[in-house]
């Protein structure tokens, strides 16, 4: 197996893990930022020293530097989808909690102070 195949498979597995596992929010965010910086460095390097990227590509068995960048982009994009799915789910939960609380309190207020029981029955 070519080196690049190994690297890509591992990268995709990591993306999958991010998608399925709920990691801690803080760690998650830190990892995302580190990767973002790495990607930025890579981008700048590929502009300033195009030969370097091709050199790395040949080392890992890809051939062309552009292909390596493309692979990197695909993995990064999938990772982005995975992590934004996670974050959206977390956000949705918060919105749901908030809306639920609002709905229940509003209903209780419309009724007066008693809980869901029939007239005067002690509630919450």
């Amino acid at each position, binding site marked *: 197996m070519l080196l690049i195949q190994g690297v890509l498979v591992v990268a995709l597995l990591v993306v999958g893990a991010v998608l*399925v596992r709920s990691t801690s929010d803080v760690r998650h965010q830190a990892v995302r930022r580190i990767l973002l910086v790495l990607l930025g460095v890579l981008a700048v390097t590929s502009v300033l020293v195009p030969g370097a990227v091709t050199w790395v590509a040949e080392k890992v068995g890809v051939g062309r530097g552009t292909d390596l960048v493309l692979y990197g982009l695909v993995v990064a994009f999938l990772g982005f989808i995975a992590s934004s799915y996670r974050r959206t789910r977390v956000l949705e939960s918060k*919105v*749901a909690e908030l*809306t639920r609380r609002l709905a*229940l309190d509003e*209903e209780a207020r419309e009724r007066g102070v008693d809980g*869901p029981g*029939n007239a005067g*029955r002690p*509630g919450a």
Partner: protein
Amino acid sequence: MTAAAPGSPGDDTWVVVPLYQEATAVGDVVRELRRTFPQVVCVDDGSTDGSAEQARRAGARVVRHCINLGQGAALQTGFDFALRDASARFVVTFDADGQHRVEDAVAMVQRLRDGEADVVFGSRFLDGRTEVPRLRRVVLRSAVHYTNLTTGVRLTDAHNGLRALSRRAVGSLRITHHRMAHASEIVSLVGRSGLPWVEQPVEIRYTDYSRAKGQSLLNSVNILVETILG
């Protein structure tokens, strides 16, 4: 409207009805429910067709989400509502579109009362009463297989909105799937909690109304993805 007399089977029971854009159906459903179960709470999910008003006029309590969250989130809100009532012992989940039968719900609560289980799942595949449209049957069957494989709970119908739960069961579940994927989630939570459960044969009425308004089969793709990804 003939609300049930005190001491009737429904006094310690809350019927939770998830409600979204069912203004033409919900009134009759609530009125029929309240002949047996005086305590009905509709969780309206930002309907814009006056569903909430219809439900209220029919005698239901209405809790309103100001934005649409989905059926799963609505059920959890209904559960929280019921738990605020210290005298609630049983909770029934019941659809607003007239597809469920009140007699089935009564029988299910009776089984809880008899101490047979903490959760009673309704199943449309246990007797010959329900005529399920063919394609829907295929999708529902696949869903059951998937749920059985992944939850360790062996059911015959995983996506039935008619359920009855004891207070203990309601208190121990927390639905996090806000849209339709909550059905499998409830099954898997019950499986993991070790609460005793049974299935009850129920009839689902496929009327023209329910067919026109019900879940598009394509949505089962979304349900599957959300179930797998958690």
